[in-house]
């Protein structure tokens, strides 16, 4: 690698926010060539995925690349403009020469960065959007072929994909739009190269798992600056993403459509979005996906963060997302990716729940993480912040999402925010774990006994055994009540939860009125779902033998539950007949 004239800058120099880095002739030529390669001429910024590919071709470890991206300012400005790109290239050269990734290192003359041959990504580019377009579970064989084409080293993954396709179509029998949702999105789409920052630990972990095969196959796929996603309703977001951060091209990130789909599926299993889906219900549901039990077990392990044997809405979304990913051939990660953490998902997942005005209640299960979010959100210092806590949850989250979509200045902040939540989320989840642990440790053995006593598929019949885990008792109440009042008793120990319940349910009447239209939806949805099980599980507990105990309690408390409902929500007479029918 020849070096340019020492010290003196030649025609071009890269400038970043006042930082002036001289480039030699050869460097400039090489860099502009690389830049035009990554960045089709009309655009001002390099496509994220091609940049990522290039960086990866430099064969530096992902952390270094991450650092480079940070230092060169692409993260800050949100895209790889020429200046950022050139700086990044210089940093790559520095890193390859063994210098630390710092601006200072590149002030000197450096050899040109070395990249191994970049694969031709055009073929993959156009393959991808079509590939995942439309059908998720009713995947036409063409898609399977494409999958196999792209991931040539994943022969073993085709098996899990092909069989499950049709059977699973029964639960998501909902509109065809849903079919394209889980697929459509990020998997094929612009795997922004910057995604690697976020997925870097993920990638590293999976280097042994053939992950690089599918990853690079996918990542090579063109983003999507323009050609991509008819599916994505957020084209604005898309554009920014590709040129900007890891963020949304992450396969472990859930899009709007996917989230809506998951939420609807959740609703079909459990009308109350604030409550849990119990283990057995979830098991039946996910077993339909025909993934091997081992993998489902692992997915559960990943997504049930608080290890209580039940899935809250965010946990369910995460689990569903992992199932989708697995069926699309992605290897399951060793740990839950950041974007699938419940605390992270809560913000977005709860958007539909805002209508229910059940927000305050939902904040209770994760009080610590809520505070974390609030804290980090105030750190964001964006204009959307509202002092009021509950309003913060509602508006802040909505604005949070909009901010993600629109504002480029917040691009880096969400990343920090994410990290902050992740770090504290990890602590929170540990704390959450520790709490039930410390509380129930003395009676853990009882739980063991009761778990052993049950037939394998059924989760421990928590309702009758009481104590041990407080959450178990609350689950009991959840199924009895099936109202939003549950969550007030979710984390606190059971006894205090009982008295407040009636009063809480009374106060929730106005919101129940809002809830009813949504509850109207699940019944038709449940009916049209051909799988009787899901519908049966919640709608008709009696038919499931395992639910004996729950049924009696549910029936016992149904009447008191309905009567306050009926007395207040007289404005919706049509709904009430639905309730008894549904139940």
């Amino acid at each position, binding site marked *: 690698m020849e070096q340019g004239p020492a010290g003196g800058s030649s025609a071009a120099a890269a400038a970043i926010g006042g930082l002036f880095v001289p480039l030699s002739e050869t460097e400039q030529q090489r860099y502009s060539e690389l830049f035009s390669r990554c960045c089709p001429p009309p655009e001002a910024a390099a496509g994220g995925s091609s940049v990522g590919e290039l960086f990866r071709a430099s064969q530096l470890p992902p952390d270094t690349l991450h650092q480079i991206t940070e230092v060169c300012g692409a993260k800050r400005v949100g895209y790889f403009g020429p200046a950022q790109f050139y700086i990044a290239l210089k940093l790559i050269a520095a890193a390859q020469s063994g210098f630390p990734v710092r601006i200072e290192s590149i002030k000197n003359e450096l050899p040109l960065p070395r990249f191994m041959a970049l694969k031709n990504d055009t073929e993959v580019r156009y393959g991808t959007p079509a590939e995942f377009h439309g059908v998720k579970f009713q995947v036409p064989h063409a898609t399977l072929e494409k999958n196999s084409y792209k991931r040539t080293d994943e022969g073993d993954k085709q098996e899990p994909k092909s069989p499950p396709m049709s059977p699973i179509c029964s639960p998501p029998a909902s509109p065809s739009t849903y079919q394209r949702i889980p697929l459509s999105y990020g998997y094929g789409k612009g795997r922004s190269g910057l995604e690697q920052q976020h997925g870097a630990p993920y990638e590293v972990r999976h280097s042994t798992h053939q992950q690089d095969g599918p990853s690079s196959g996918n990542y090579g796929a063109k983003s999507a600056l323009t050609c991509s996603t008819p599916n994505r309703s957020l084209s604005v977001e898309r554009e920014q993403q590709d040129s900007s951060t890891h963020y949304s091209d992450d396969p472990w990130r859930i899009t709007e459509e996917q989230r809506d789909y998951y939420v609807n599926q959740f609703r079909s299993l459990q009308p109350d979005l604030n409550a849990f889906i119990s283990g057995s219900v979830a098991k039946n549901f996910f077993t339909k996906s025909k993934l091997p039990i081992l993998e489902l077990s692992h997915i559960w*392990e990943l997504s049930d963060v608080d290890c*209580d*044997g039940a899935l809250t809405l965010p946990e369910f979304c995460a689990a569903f997302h992992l199932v989708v990913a697995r069926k699309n051939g992605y290897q399951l990660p060793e740990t839950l990716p950041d974007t699938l953490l419940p605390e992270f998902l809560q913000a977005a997942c709860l958007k539909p729940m805002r209508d229910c005005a059940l927000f305050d209640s939902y904040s209770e299960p994760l009080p610590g993480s809520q505070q974390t979010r609030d804290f980090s959100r105030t750190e964001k210092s964006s204009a959307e912040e509202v002092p009021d806590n509950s309003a913060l949850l509602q508006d802040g989250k909505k604005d949070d999402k909009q901010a993600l979509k629109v504002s480029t200045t917040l691009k880096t902040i969400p990343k920090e925010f994410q990290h902050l939540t992740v770090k504290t989320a990890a602590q929170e989840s540990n704390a959450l774990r520790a709490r039930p642990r410390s509380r129930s*440790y003395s009676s853990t053995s009882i*739980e*063991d006994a009761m*778990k052993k*006593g049950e037939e394998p598929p059924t989760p421990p019949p928590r309702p009758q055994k009481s104590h041990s885990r407080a959450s178990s008792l609350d689950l009991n109440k959840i199924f009895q009540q099936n109202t939003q009042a549950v969550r007030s008793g979710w984390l606190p120990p059971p006894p205090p939860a009982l008295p407040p319940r009636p009063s809480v349910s009374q106060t929730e009447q106005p919101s129940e009125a809002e809830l009813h239209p949504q509850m109207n939806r699940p019944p038709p949805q449940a009916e049209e779902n051909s799988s009787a099980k899901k519908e049966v599980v919640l709608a008709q507990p009696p038919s499931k033998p395992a639910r004996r105990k729950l049924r009696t309690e549910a029936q016992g408390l149904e009447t008191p539950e309905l009567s306050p409902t009926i007395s207040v929500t007289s404005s919706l007479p049509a709904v009430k007949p639905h309730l008894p029918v549904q139940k």
Partner: protein
Amino acid sequence: QSVGFVLPPQNYPLYIRSVPTENELKFHYTVHTSLDVVDEKISAMGKALVDQRELYLGLLYPTEDYKVYGYVTNSKVKFVMVVDSSNTALRDNEIRSMFRKLHNSYTDIMCNPFYNPGDRIHSRAFDNMVNSMMMQVC
């Protein structure tokens, strides 16, 4: 070296992990012989329901010196651990805490609806936990 075993009441192992993988068979044998002692102790303590841990069994053969620790849950799931005696830094409390961690991870596994009690344990979280624990010991 250290070895960890998880065994249900039927006394077949659900989970086996040894840190140095040689001589595994010897450890397996040791664990099985210690099961007798475990059962004896279980039957001996009639009234106490919660058995936090079991005694350090003292299976110290003259030639090879290692210690076997046992722990039993209320559902008669046994955890057995074999550690090298040369590792004198290991105190009773540490062993207890290790068993506690094992127990916690085990209940986490139980939470998983896809796990059937009596299956071998394939949980990665459990693996990680056991590995880290063993690394700590050795």
